[in-house]
């Protein structure tokens, strides 16, 4: 009883404070601009002084463009991967505007934590992004985020070792230099299987179609990878060994993404080459590797008190000017179709490689719920091949076992 009384007392105090605060808020708004409090979450680098404080700059510009609102910004740090968890766990206490990686978009939508864009905003988003990119933030034709960059991996190489012609074919590269690939990472390994016709959930959205990593096409790939590991010029990249190899020149090409671009640039300098994925040869035929691709998007909290302002800010933060500044300050690869036509951006090899990969040598990473069953079997396959427990003799049954495991949730 005492506790209840105390709780009621506390609630009373809190309500009174809120009412008072609300009253003062109203008082001010009558005098002119409407008072708005927007909480914005972004990765720490977007707010770091030494990187130019992208977020603060953009938010202040936004405030200047909208004198009708008197906006107070509250900044929080949540990178694209963690924002999903935080926002879906407690949307009410989360940011009005946040950035998230699209692979967990279903979690956000199921938690009813992210707002759907409609009307004129939908038109703006559709007119500035490619349809493939839009698919990465679409669920049942609703757009739940505005992409501001693509998220995928591709190839970095040493120009002194490989020519522009060499990097088109993995087998050619292996003749000329050392290549390192994260074979034991399930975000990378499936690229070989996708190349030979294996699919996930039909076109990636139809859960009922399941995983198709079966038959001779998948066994051929397993056999190819077994040979690949046996090649003395091929090195498995694990625990940062690829980067270490680049540093001491024992490795000449790695597969990774823009997050390591600056470090690689530091090592290779002007000799850094970067391009979309190469082809590889199975049974005499050239097959294209396909990376997983996704996007990072700005989302609006569906619990936001200031929906209009939050949506406007999200559109601004993912708009052309903001993307240009993002690219200039932090090397975040833009994806706005108009911006990509600009000369200085179009000529950047990194931008070109990432976008080429996204457009030509990648598949959209499926975000159907059954996707969670896919990761571990693939990773185990990579480990098995590395440890030589998967051999040409048992490749067929191991591949079948992997396919079965990917199609099952382990419970039934």
């Amino acid at each position, binding site marked *: 009883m005492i506790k209840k009384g105390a709780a009621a007392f506390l609630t009373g105090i809190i309500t009174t404070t809120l009412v008072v605060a609300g009253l003062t808020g109203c008082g001010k708004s009558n005098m002119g601009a409407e008072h708005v409090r927007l909480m914005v979450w972004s990765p720490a680098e977007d707010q770091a002084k030494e990187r130019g404080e992208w977020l603060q700059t953009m938010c202040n510009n936004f405030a200047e463009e909208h004198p009708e609102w008197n906006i107070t910004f509250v900044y929080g740090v949540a990178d694209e991967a963690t924002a999903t968890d935080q926002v879906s766990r407690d949307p009410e206490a989360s940011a009005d505007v946040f950035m998230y990686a699209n692979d967990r978009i279903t979690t956000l939508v199921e938690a009813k934590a992210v707002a759907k864009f409609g009307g004129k905003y939908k038109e703006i988003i559709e007119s500035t992004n490619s349809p493939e990119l839009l698919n990465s933030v679409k669920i049942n034709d609703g757009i739940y985020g505005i992409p501001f960059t693509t998220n995928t991996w591709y190839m970095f190489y040493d120009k002194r070792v490989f020519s522009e012609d060499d990097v088109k074919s993995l087998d050619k590269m292996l003749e000329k230099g050392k290549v390192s690939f994260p074979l034991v990472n399930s975000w990378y390994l499936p690229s070989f299987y996708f190349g030979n016709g294996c699919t996930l959930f039909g076109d990636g959205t139809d859960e009922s179609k399941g995983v198709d990593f079966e038959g001779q096409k998948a066994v051929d790939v397993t056999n190819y990878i077994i040979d690949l590991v046996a090649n003395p010029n091929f090195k498995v990249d694990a625990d940062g060994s690829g980067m*270490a190899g680049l*540093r001491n020149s024992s490795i000449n090409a790695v597969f990774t993404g823009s997050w390591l671009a600056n470090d690689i640039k530091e090592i290779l300098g002007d000799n850094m080459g970067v391009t979309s994925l190469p082809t590889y040869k199975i049974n005499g035929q050239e097959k294209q590797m396909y990376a997983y691709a996704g996007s990072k998007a700005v989302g609006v909290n569906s619990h936001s008190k200031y929906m209009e302002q939050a949506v406007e800010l999200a559109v601004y933060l993912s708009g052309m000017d903001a993307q240009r500044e993002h690219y200039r300050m932090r090397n975040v690869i833009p994806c706005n179709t108009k911006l990509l036509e600009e000369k200085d951006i179009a000529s950047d090899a990194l931008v070109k490689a990432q976008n080429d990969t996204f457009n030509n040598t990648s598949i959209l990473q499926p975000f159907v719920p059954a996707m969670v069953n896919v990761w571990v079997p693939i990773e185990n396959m990579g480990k098995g091949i590395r440890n030589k427990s998967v051999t040409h003799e048992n490749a067929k049954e191991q591949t079948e076992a992997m396919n079965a495991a990917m199609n099952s949730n382990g419970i039934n």
Partner: protein
Amino acid sequence: MVEKKLQSASQKKMINNIIVHIVLAILAVIWLFPIFWVIMTSFRKEQGSYISTFIPAAFTTKNYERLFTNTTILNFSQMFGNTLFIAICSCILSTFYVLAVSYCLSRIKFKLRKPYMNMAMVLGLFPGFMSMIAVYFILKAMGLTEGSLIKLALILCYSGGAGLGFQIAKGFFDTIPLAIDEAALLDGCTRWQIFSKITLPLSKPIIVYTVLTSFMAPWLDFIFAKVICRANSDQYTIAIGLWKMLEKEYIDSWYTSFAAGAVLISIPIAILFLFMQRYYVDGVSGAVKG
């Protein structure tokens, strides 16, 4: 004959010693190896998370400097300060809770004593992080999940459950004879005086133990800090900071600094232990005569 026998006995002893020492040396190397490795890595000059040589090719103290100078993305000194503050506060609070609860359960007979001990036992079987989401929403309802109140929230989290961890201290108090308490009562001591003037001075080892464990729990905790801090990066504790350094964006450039941070967080624990270990020897020895 006698001499020969003696010699063989001492030889035997020597052989035994050699074997024992070799085994101990091997075990010591195995146990100390990871620590030594972290220290080596913290002074390593080459960047990156992968090393091919155990002894670094070049040494530097830059990794340590960087923790305190490069603060815009990961503000290590602030995290260090936050964690130290939280750990000291919860250490004091939970030490008091543990000792008080143990003393009561050991000395005072009351009706709920047995049920309380059973309940504590059962509750203690559940891992604390099971309740973390519930704890988060309770703290949020109390308005403790924003700004610097997060520190208070974390202190409450770490010290709140301390009263359940009384078993060891209670066991220790049980070994102090009741006769001492009775003598003190006859001399006119109150319960509090018995606790503070007689039981506590006799229980230094267990106090040291309690202080150490209740300092280390918040100092090293990751789960609660992660759930409660959310996007408030100015309230991050060291554990979150160190974890951040290993994310794919940072790991290549921050890995050696991560090792340096790992070395630094062991310092307060080491100081606390060195300062307190002399009390380990004291305690009950010679307290009760005859």
